[in-house]
């Protein structure tokens, strides 16, 4: 059925991971009896295994929730609540911003024990920029550690209003959830529409379906869309007829039309998700389609972090290419191009939105395509200004994301690196250590504000390269897990950067090369050689491991040749077990990468290049 626009409420939930967003969504589905109790499961809307295992949302989901507030008489569901469930992680902040733009209201959901986190504040700012009505909600008020009054003050210090206006609920028990639904009806404005304008809809996500092509999630801004309508994508120019038009309630349900303010999904034989880009505007094809104004805020996905992906077994190279192509059908925001590494063979340099995005893609390659991978150290894209000048008399510049591609120092005039504006929210007690950490990572403080007497918001300009090493781990450990971090891209700034090479048995292993600040070069080199000494098993000869800047060795360790690798006793009862053990070890050996004459276990690459656990949401 269609709803009059004044009865539609589009909302999302802004929350930190584990603050109860999925539980609240589950409870809403239950209270409104949308999901058969027998089919109910936790994290109902998150469909991917990775999402369910990690408790995060990667792809947006929607739920169409008919709701009749109590005391408004009967006569069937009166209001249509559209929940747009979005990812919350910094890597996906563009996707989040588009989803927020598809809503008129946002529930600000905060754990009453943990308080506001940087990620939440950042997304809250996005929601405020999008002019959304914010409904503040405190969750987990039944926890013994809850400090609702204090956290409520934190919330109102940013959004205004009185702490007493903050709703207090337990999504787990369902207490107060009905009041949240009522508040959505009361406070969130109905969608606005331009009745005279051409039909327009905003794409806030798209996923790939092997049978139907890209499934496009969108919000109708103006006009009405029907199955069979020929649509036109403004940014990509893609045109085709709508095959399926559907809503999720919460299972996919076909629908005859979607009018202004409504949220739904369409398929139109779109072969790749890159033809239906997040933020693009859908209109009807035909004369004048190209003149329909695009909805504001569209941009191309921007890679922040780069990494080389190499198959452990070089025979898997074509398989990896196929897999990356398939994943790209599903995720237009990562890029890849072939590259070659002396140490690792043929692989791909891939660009990602961030570290979580990198981890998700590599995990999916492993899980869905079963390709064992070696991943090179994540790097950023540097701007290198060369001594050489072009015809116009200007210095030539190049972009470098692979340390191998950095020219010889004498050819470089200067190197600029990307920076980010970072926001850290921490309890007062840890301001000192956080400052120390940020300064150690070449951070420049921009501002420091007290959210309450206890909690501080600190803003820094930091080199992106510093963030994608173990920054978040360090931040977490020095604040006992209490600090949170968010960041957004900022300017390129000149920096004193050098390339550190790591040599195994005198041969440089390009996969371990890194571009680092000169002051951090020794630390990087020392850490790498020490890690590798631990990770590479002893072999038949001594293996020197060196870190060097150009020809200058800055750190060195030696893996001594192994001298014993034999079972002392091997009699009748040992033979079978021993044979099986050797067979297993032989299999394991196949998974080693030969770097020159040195055998390096895949885990050694992974572990040596590990920059610390990737933070989530």
């Amino acid at each position, binding site marked *: 059925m269609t709803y009059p626009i004044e009865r539609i409420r589009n909302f999302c939930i802004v929350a930190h991971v584990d603050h109860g967003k999925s539980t609240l969504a589950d409870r809403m589905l239950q209270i409104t009896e949308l999901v058969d109790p027998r089919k109910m499961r936790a994290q109902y809307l998150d469909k991917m295994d990775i999402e369910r295992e990690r408790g995060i949302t990667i792809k947006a989901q929607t739920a169409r929730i008919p709701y009749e507030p109590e005391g408004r008489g009967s006569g069937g569901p009166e209001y249509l609540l559209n929940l747009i469930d979005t990812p919350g992680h910094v890597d996906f902040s563009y996707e989040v911003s588009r989803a927020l733009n598809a809503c008129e209201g946002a529930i600000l959901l905060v754990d009453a024990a943990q308080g506001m986190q940087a990620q939440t504040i950042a997304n809250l700012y996005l929601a405020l920029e999008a002019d959304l009505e914010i409904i503040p909600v405190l969750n987990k008020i039944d926890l013994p550690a809850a400090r609702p009054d204090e956290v409520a003050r934190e919330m109102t210090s940013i959004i205004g209003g009185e702490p007493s206006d903050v709703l207090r609920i337990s999504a787990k028990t369902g207490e107060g959830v009905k009041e949240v639904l009522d508040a959505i009806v009361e406070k969130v404005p109905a969608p606005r529409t331009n009745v005279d304008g051409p039909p327009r809809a905003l794409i806030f996500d798209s996923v790939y379906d092997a049978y139907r092509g890209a499934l496009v999630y969108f919000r109708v801004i103006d006009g009405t869309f029907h199955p069979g309508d020929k649509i036109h994508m403004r940014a990509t120019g893609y045109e085709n007829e709508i095959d399926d038009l559907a809503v999720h309630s919460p299972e996919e349900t076909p629908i005859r039309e979607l009018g202004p303010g409504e949220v739904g999904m369409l398929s139109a034989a779109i072969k790749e998700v890159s033809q239906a880009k997040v933020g693009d505007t859908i209109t009807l094809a035909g004369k004048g389609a190209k003149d329909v104004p695009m909805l504001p805020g569209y941009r191309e996905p921007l890679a922040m972090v780069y990494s080389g992906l190499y198959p452990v077994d070089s025979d898997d190279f074509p398989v990896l290419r196929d897999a990356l192509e398939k994943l790209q059908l599903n995720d237009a925001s990562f890029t890849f191009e072939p590259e070659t590494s002396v140490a690792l063979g043929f692989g791909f340099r891939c660009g990602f939105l961030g570290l979580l995005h990198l981890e998700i893609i590599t995990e999916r390659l492993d899980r869905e395509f079963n390709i064992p991978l070696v991943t090179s150290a994540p790097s950023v894209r540097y701007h290198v200004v060369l001594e050489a000048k072009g015809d116009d008399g200007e210095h030539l510049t190049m972009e470098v994301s692979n340390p191998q591609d950095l020219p010889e120092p004498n050819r470089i005039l200067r190197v600029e690196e990307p920076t980010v504006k970072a926001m850290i929210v921490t309890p007062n007690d840890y301001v000192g250590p956080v400052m120390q950490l940020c300064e150690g990572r070449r951070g420049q403080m921009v501002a420091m504000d007290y959210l309450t007497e206890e909690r501080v918001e600190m803003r820094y300009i930091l080199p992106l390269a510093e963030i994608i090493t173990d920054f978040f781990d360090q931040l977490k450990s020095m604040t006992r897990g209490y600090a949170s971090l968010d960041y957004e891209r900022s300017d390129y700034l000149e920096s004193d950067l050098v390339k550190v090479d790591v040599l195994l048995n005198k041969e440089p292993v390009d996969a371990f090369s890194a571009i680092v600040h000169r002051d951090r070069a020794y630390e990087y080199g020392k850490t790498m050689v020490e890690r590798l000494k631990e990770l590479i098993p002893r072999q038949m000869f001594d293996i020197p491991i060196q870190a060097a800047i150009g020809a200058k060795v800055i750190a060195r360790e030696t893996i001594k040749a192994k*001298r*014993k690798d034999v079972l*002392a*006793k091997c009699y009748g009862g040992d*033979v*079978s077990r021993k044979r099986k053990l*050797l067979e297993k070890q032989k299999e394991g050996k196949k998974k080693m990468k030969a770097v020159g004459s040195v055998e390096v276990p895949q885990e050694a690459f992974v572990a040596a290049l590990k920059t610390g656990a990737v933070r989530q949401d």
Partner: protein
Amino acid sequence: MSTPDAPPTSRWLGHGSERWLDDPVESGPAAGFGVYLHVPFCAHRCGYCDFATWDDKAGWMHRYVAAVHADIARTVAGGRRAVAPASAELDDHWPEVTSIFVGGGTPTLLPPDDLAGLVERVVAELDLAGDAEVTVECNPETASVALFERLVAAGVTRVSMGAQSFAPHVLATLERQHGPERPVAAVAEARAAGIGSINLDLIYGTPGERDEDWAETLRRVVAVGTDHVSAYALTIHDNTPFGSAVRDGTMPAPDEDLQADRFDVADDVLGAAGFQHYEVSNWARSPALRSDHNLLYWRHGDYLAFGVGAHAHVAGRRWWSHRSIPRYVTAIEDGGSPVAMDEVLSEAERAEERLMLGLRVREGLHPHDVPPLDAEALEDAMRLGLVTTSCGRLQATARGWFLLDEAVRRLM
């Protein structure tokens, strides 16, 4: 140890080393036919031991011995075809027994007549070759001239005793119940009783063992005048008290470099005393004094095995009995089979086993036993000084001996 580039055979040209050129022994039936008997009782279970043995099951001794007798009688009566793989095309007759080995545990915890009776049972059921080697493992504590005389009467020709170390503090760490003098006396008692061939077991690389402890141990073992020495690098097994101690950090894991040093010292000292190193952990005063029974294992020969957890092998089929005394005994008492599991080895698996076992022995693999090898892998293993070939044989080098797993993984 010699450097990898030095011809590894050069140091072998001592006495007896010509034997492998003109008297190579092929794997399989040509290697002989053995019988292993397992006695799973100990007065104390040492912290490093992962063998099938118990120090709290002495009450089962009588029934256990009876069960082993029954096991021997039934297996022999069943004929050879019943235990060989169907594809082996063997006749039903048992070959002449060339070696018997009674191991444990502590076989000498059994009453002497029971222990001798087990050997006598085998001799009664099967034909024993005239020059058969019959070994019994003896604990020095339980040894006596009377015991050895009883064993000699049963046909025992060789005893193997656990000395482990001549340093009292190392013995204490190993939880051995005897002092350093007892094995010396036991050797003399065995000699007096007419035991022809005597082995002492040693363990090196025990936490707390010093260079001088090992030197003294070697000096004493040479002075005692044994015919054979087995010296084992201490191995930590997960499911032992030592394994837990290493996991918990209360005991340091053995240092493999140190064990390699100790091995070098052992090889030097024993070599100088006239012992020939003929297997990873074994030295003999002459080729004739090597352990025939153990050579049978390394030559992938055929052997029967009786008692808990004992592994038998005939023509590519291996089987082993229950490891638990009650299960083994009751299975036999109930007229059933004590076999826990068996496996029929594929040709490839047999080849792998011949490789991994054959390379343990000084002479290496008989030309007929050398499997088709990947030329590149072989060249690599030779270049690294792990193996060498000579007269069609494939052998570990002096360096390769202590890196045998590496060599085998490269070649298999």
